[in-house]
């Protein structure tokens, strides 16, 4: 932890509040993610954890507070938002692959449009990252021809191929059949071992134990508790955390 803390912050959130109409979903969140840090966010459904990480790349707006990504203060200006999005990769619960494009095109098209790579460069880089998620042989298939686990690995490859500074994962294994969860988590562990800065919303407590530098527990739009996984899981301080952990740890 100490070594991570000295590195400059990848994400800096201060006093972040968000309302849907009159309902407040985030209450003055303060959160700093250091470069290279692996953060796991957990909490009951409706606690605001997905909303929180979706504000980081401006998929959700907010009314109060400040978000800085790699030192850039997030505004509603198109150039700023697109700059931030080019530095932040995201993996969704529902994969969100482009169904009309092959696996290879899913990875290569954004590289060409956003990074300005040539067709061959984009293809080579896509194949490199598809190999890293261990499905280069599926490159010419369409997403509908793949299993859920394979689709999510493609989604990870597509995001990582953009070479972002931070990766956000929004419940990446929640829509998967149980036997496919491991193959996706393995890819994420590999990514963590390479030093990628990651913020992961997940219920996979095994993953949190193995990979996380810090675990955050959210409830009702607030960060209730946080700490390194060893203390978080063995000695949770708040009652709500204890109750939640009792539900998810068997």
């Amino acid at each position, binding site marked *: 932890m100490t070594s991570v803390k000295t590195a400059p912050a990848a994400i800096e959130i201060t006093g972040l509040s968000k309302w849907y109409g009159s309902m407040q979903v985030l209450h003055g969140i303060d959160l700093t993610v250091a470069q290279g840090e692996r953060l796991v966010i957990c909490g009951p459904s409706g606690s605001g954890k997905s909303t929180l990480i979706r504000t980081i790349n401006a998929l959700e707006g907010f009314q109060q507070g400040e978000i800085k990504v790699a030192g850039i203060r997030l505004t509603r200006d198109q150039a700023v938002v697109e700059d931030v*999005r*080019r530095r932040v*990769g*995201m993996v969704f619960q529902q994969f*969100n692959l482009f*169904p009309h494009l092959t696996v290879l095109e899913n990875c290569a098209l954004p590289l060409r449009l956003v990074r300005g790579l040539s067709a061959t460069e984009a293809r080579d880089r896509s194949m490199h990252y598809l190999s890293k998620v261990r499905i280069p042989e599926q490159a010419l298939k369409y*997403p509908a*021809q793949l299993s859920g686990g394979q689709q999510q690995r493609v989604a990870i490859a597509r995001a990582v191929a953009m070479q972002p500074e931070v990766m956000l994962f929004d419940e990446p294994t929640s829509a998967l059949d149980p036997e496919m969860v491991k193959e996706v988590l393995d890819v994420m562990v590999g990514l963590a071992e390479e030093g990628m800065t990651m913020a992961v919303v997940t219920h996979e407590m095994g993953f949190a134990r193995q990979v996380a530098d810090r675990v955050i527990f959210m409830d009702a739009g607030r960060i209730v508790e946080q700490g390194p996984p060893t203390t978080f899981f063995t000695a949770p301080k708040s009652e709500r955390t204890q109750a939640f952990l009792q539900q998810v740890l068997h």
Partner: protein
Amino acid sequence: MHFRDNIDYPPMLTRPAVFIPLLSAIFASLWWFGAGDSAIGRLVLGLVPMAEGNPLNLATAAFVTALVGFNIFVVMRLPLRQQVWLVWGELAALILLFFYSFDLSFAFIQRKIGFLITQGLVTTLYISAVSIVIATVLALLGAVAKLSSNGIAQGIAHFYTSLFRGLPLLMQIYMIYLGLPQLGYVVDAVPTGIAALSLCYGAYMTEIFRAGIESIPKGQWEAARALGMRPTSVMTRIILPQSMRVIIPPTGNQFISMLKDSSLVSVVGVWELMYLARTQGQTEFRHIEMMVTASLIYWLLSIVLELLQKRIETHFNKAATR
């Protein structure tokens, strides 16, 4: 078929409860409407001499019913694809027979068909093709405007679809041809036709495009935007190609419909297919010859568009079908 259940239903037409009432109904209605007076009646009379009137009506009705029954019996024994094509061909043959029964002068058709094609068909195709392109552009703009957050654009788009879907196409043609000169702009007949068809069909297709774009799940926008793609790239590379699956079938409908609605332009004197079909027969009182010829040309063109639509559909479906 899109969904084939795993049940072996007995084919409808093999059930006595279906085919006996069906054939009886055919027999009864033919008898009731005096089928003996028809061309088929005369054919039956030629085969078996008998008294005209009720006996001939009965015999004709029995003859046709037997023919239908035998036809069903044969067709039911073929594989599905052949059934479809055979029935299609039989019905087409019946229509042609219907036209043939008009006692047409083929010499007259032969004399006129050249002009009907080089002048009429070419004009119809020209007007339709240009209108199709303009209508598609208008529809795309209209749909994007309706989905935008720009109030002025939305207002214009809503008014546009309301007005041009709300007025009869014939009225729009007159408005442009006879109304615009009041403002000092005299518009020729062909541009009038193209303008009216484009505006009218652009309005209908705006709604098709809007529905197509809205049918794409929000996650697709989010994924593309999260990757840093620009809004125009998201629209042209991610959303529209996927919307095509939804947009193509009704748009094909619109194109076929427009092809035939281009005949309304004949009211302002454009020498397209319908206009020539009406005028060329006049000199020799051979209206029906020209009408039949023009009908067949319209039908053939529609078939070409149908086939084209099918090809495009298959193209945009390739990702969805394994």
